[in-house]
């Protein structure tokens, strides 16, 4: 596969899911991506027609892992064109191989990208906020307490004045500039795309190099287990840091305000929500379901208590 063809397939693979449908899933996107290779391999229209029909059949894989399947399929088609093998039997082999590898790669890709990279890069966004001074990201509005978190009007003063002495001067605690706030999501985007684009590009070469000669075609190109384990650990560590630090910055000012019923309630609320998240996960419900259930439940509670939050 020459560089020009590789670039073409790579760019077309970005539309892999454009026509996703329940019947054959990514079939149209896959055929669209592999078409430049097929046109080159099978210049005769009747042979191209047959090759095209092979790839318009049902297929589903994780979109970032599709490069492996595309590269492998291109190589297998090339081999088929240059071999003396009976086309019908070999075509069936390409189909079977393609589907098997696509399913295996989908499992890895789902776990790595949807399961780990998405949360991890969101955590990176929030960590960038945190380290650029946007501590109050969990708050609905600056200043007065709303909801779970407590009054953090004095928080920046506490953080900068007591904990992180900033040249002896207490920071007045203004929100960070807009670039600092934008830097969070941008950092998440860069981290996510650095890996996903690399996997997409490398997948094409690795799949082509394998060309269906090995049952773990392309799978051995990257140490997936190590990558998933390492990124899963990072995700866990970041979650621990964010939970602990967010609680710390909410609780710390309470020591300066004195103990009251309200401050106790605020102290207890985050651990209770963490407990709720645990229960929700155990019961198999989603976070959105827990949030939705909290609205009527807390409305009834406030009704009974006779006042708002």
């Amino acid at each position, binding site marked *: 596969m020459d560089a020009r063809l590789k670039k073409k397939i790579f760019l077309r693979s970005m539309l892999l899911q454009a*026509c996703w449908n329940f019947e054959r899933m990514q079939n149209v996107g896959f055929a669209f991506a592999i078409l430049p290779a097929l046109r080159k391999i099978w210049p005769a229209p009747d042979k191209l027609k047959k090759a095209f029909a092979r790839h318009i059949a049902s297929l589903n894989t994780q979109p970032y892992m599709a490069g492996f399947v595309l590269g492998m399929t291109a190589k297998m088609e090339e081999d088929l064109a240059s071999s003396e093998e009976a086309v019908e039997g070999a075509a069936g082999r390409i189909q079977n191989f393609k589907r098997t590898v696509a399913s295996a790669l989908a499992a890895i890709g789902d776990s790595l990208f949807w399961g780990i990279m998405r949360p991890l890069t969101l955590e990176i966004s929030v960590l960038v906020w945190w380290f650029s001074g946007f501590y109050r990201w969990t708050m609905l509005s600056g200043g007065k307490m709303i909801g779970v978190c407590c009054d953090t009007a004095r928080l920046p003063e506490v953080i900068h004045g007591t904990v992180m002495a900033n040249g002896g001067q207490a920071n007045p605690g203004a929100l960070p500039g807009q670039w600092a706030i934008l830097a969070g999501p941008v950092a*998440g985007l860069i981290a996510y795309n650095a890996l996903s684009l690399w996997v997409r590009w490398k997948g094409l070469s690795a799949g082509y190099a394998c060309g269906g000669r090995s049952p773990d075609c392309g799978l051995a190109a990257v140490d997936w287990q190590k990558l998933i384990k390492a990124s899963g650990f990072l995700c866990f560590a970041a979650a621990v840091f964010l939970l602990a630090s967010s609680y710390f910055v909410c609780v710390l000012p309470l020591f300066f305000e004195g103990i009251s019923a309200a401050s106790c309630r605020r102290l207890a609320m985050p651990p209770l929500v963490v407990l709720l998240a645990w229960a929700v996960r155990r019961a198999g419900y989603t976070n959105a379901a827990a949030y939705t259930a909290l609205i009527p439940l*807390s409305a009834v509670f406030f009704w009974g208590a006779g006042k708002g939050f």
Partner: protein
Amino acid sequence: MSFWELAAYCVGLGLLELENMQAGQFMLSRPSVVGALIGLLTGRLVEGARMGVFLELLFLDQAPMGGIIPPSGLVAAGAGVLLMAGAGLEFSMAFALSILLGYAYSRLQLPLRNMRNSWNGKIDAAADRGKTDLSGWIVKALVSETAACTVLLLAGIPVAATAGNWLWNNGPGQIRSALVFACSTAPWLGMAALLFRFKPRLSAGER
């Protein structure tokens, strides 16, 4: 916010929605990015960025694996910030309504995907005639998706704004308090869910 301004935002979000599933998937359409972007454009950067992150934390446990259609984070984040900045809704009310719109769009995906089922036969027939060019089908899919998202936002935001304003101003105070309370639990729910999700993975030493 004028109708034309809203329409421009809705078309922009409709185009960006393509990136969510159909084209690229560079994560430009993730709620944390869309919230910050629309927030920046509407002059509500801090609230927009917060809303995006809150929504993403809440939706993280619903991934588009296999045929699963998760709620659209892009529609939710875009609508949420527009409800807040354009219609003047309170953050927590806009947040609740944005989740509804995110789910509404995922329901709209079902007929869109079913519609594309019916294209397979036509593509096969065209291939039999030697027509292998698929660009037309792809453009058709992208245009229909953008149109559906734009129409949903254009119809959904004014309805949600009217309902939200009415409920906030005329509904019982307990509802307002409940919305504020539930909204403030969103980041904690999301962060805690991440903690529990990755903990067993570590102890099992797998995946």
